[in-house]
């Protein structure tokens, strides 16, 4: 989880990822950042994020992203 926070802060340092719960709904992360983020997460955690998983619910907060990562790691 710490590594996820590091990645997010490297990408877009201006937000507090411990608090933000609507990163997509509030337009804080745009589709470009999400694509860059997915590419980084795939490398870092050795997962493949299918297109169907790119929904706001999976990227609105660091917790939601971590839940997605752990689920994909288990599959």
């Amino acid at each position, binding site marked *: 989880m710490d590594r996820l926070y590091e990645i997010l802060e490297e990408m877009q340092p201006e937000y507090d990822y411990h608090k933000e719960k609507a990163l997509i709904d509030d337009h804080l992360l745009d*589709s*470009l*950042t999400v*694509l860059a983020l997915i*590419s980084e997460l*795939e490398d870092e955690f050795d997962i493949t*994020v299918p297109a*169907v998983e*790119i929904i706001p619910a999976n990227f609105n907060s660091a917790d939601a992203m971590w839940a997605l990562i752990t689920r994909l790691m288990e599959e």
Partner: protein
Amino acid sequence: MLSYCSVEYLLVFLPVVLFGYLILPKTARRYFLLLSSYAFFWYLSGPLVLWHVAACLCVWLCGLAIDRVLAARDEALLSAERSQKKAIRAKYAGKVRRWVFLAGVVCFGILLSLKYTPFFIDNLNALLRTLHTGRQLKVPSILVPVGISFYTLMAMSYVFDVGREQRAPEKNFFRLTLWLAFFPTLMEGPFMRYDTAEQIWEVPRIKGENFQKGLWRILYGVLKKMIVADRVNSAVELLYTDFASYDGGMMFLAAVLFTLQEYMEFSGTIDIVIGSAQCFGFVLPENFNQPFFAKTISEFWTRWHITLGAWLRDYVFYPLSMSAPLKKLTKKCRAKFGNHYGPLVTSSIALFAVWLFNGLWHGAGWSFIFFGMYHFALIVAGSFVTPVVISFCEKHHINRRSFPYRLFQMIRTALLVAVGEMFFRALSLKTGLIMFRQMFTRATLQSFTDGKFLKLGMDRQDYIIVAVFVVCVFVISLLKERGCRVLDALYKKPMFIRCLITAVLVALILLFGAYGTGYVPVDPIYANF
């Protein structure tokens, strides 16, 4: 063309269907809605309704075929060794893809052949003329069923979702058909995902609260259409046909007036559509979210025609961006150009496909393709300059979250949208370019002072009525933007006040709506797509 704002729909068709729905038992309500929807479709398109039935049959059968493939895969996986599972999944995924492809060929094939054949032949003839071959092909005149661009995309979203295992295939043909033919959404959307099919099939009882809120929403939509969209129609017609007679100031007015007209017509129709469904108790997805509060073009497209944007995002943009070749390219570009510009290179490829599709979806013409490319260029340019703008603002201590800066962003976005809409409305791409050039080459405001401004089929009173109503819509939008649920708040008022609100809305339509001699109501703009 019959529109959702017509007397036939609002005072005859809708009340009759609501009454029938109210008195029938639950099971009969479903088939009554289905029958009513096809009666509506038949009234609009006659025997062309068979194309719709063909699309329904195709996606239903393909869904069932995918279901069989998935069942066979699950059975094969049960008895397989761990090492074999990946190969089994890949084998059956290929089979699923073949069924999805078949549905796409049939549905998009019907759409392309009915709607785009004349456009392709026109362009082929132009090419043959350029090559001096002396041959010309006959351009066929093809009748197109109403709403084909809407129901085709909805039908394909069902097949894509089944193929991705995001939803179970539909066994009941009538449930799928009712979802695809549901009369309020037939002509202008919004695009519904298949989860709404379950809700419609449930055919809830009509409740007083839903009916009241639905009625208010319908009246608000009628007001938008009849007070603004229809009232400015004569001016828009004149400015776009006789553009050579006007100066740059009037070309700017043409851009603004058409943007206003399109917004009021389309969002007003969507209000009538969502309100009609709400009267029954159905909740449809919203298609507008105060688009003129958007600060960038990409944000604008998350607020305007939301369901089309979501369709393109889910079924074109992300699948393309996440395809193996583009993922590889993203990785390479990130290493070379960094976290911002790296993904921008690859997402530009996916965005190009999205906007080409968006332009062509709106119509078979070069001006629509240009409209798509215009927005593509603005979005890519916006993303490209974002880091420069951020560092500029930091350097000059400009607070990007301050109200003046956000207001500047909103006005800039609205102006860019208006210019795009001018190309969208122009009679051809060539006339759109001439009108755009005229804005600068004949940049005077003389027409506003020499009286031409008041000879567009709108007098001083018309301009005042339009301006006052636009301010009212703006105030309501502002309230919604700040989280106020206007209809819920109004419904909490006492019965007397609620009746008064309804009476005032009806009176406003009768007093200020543009109808009768001297007015030609605007055709439903999106029903032609």
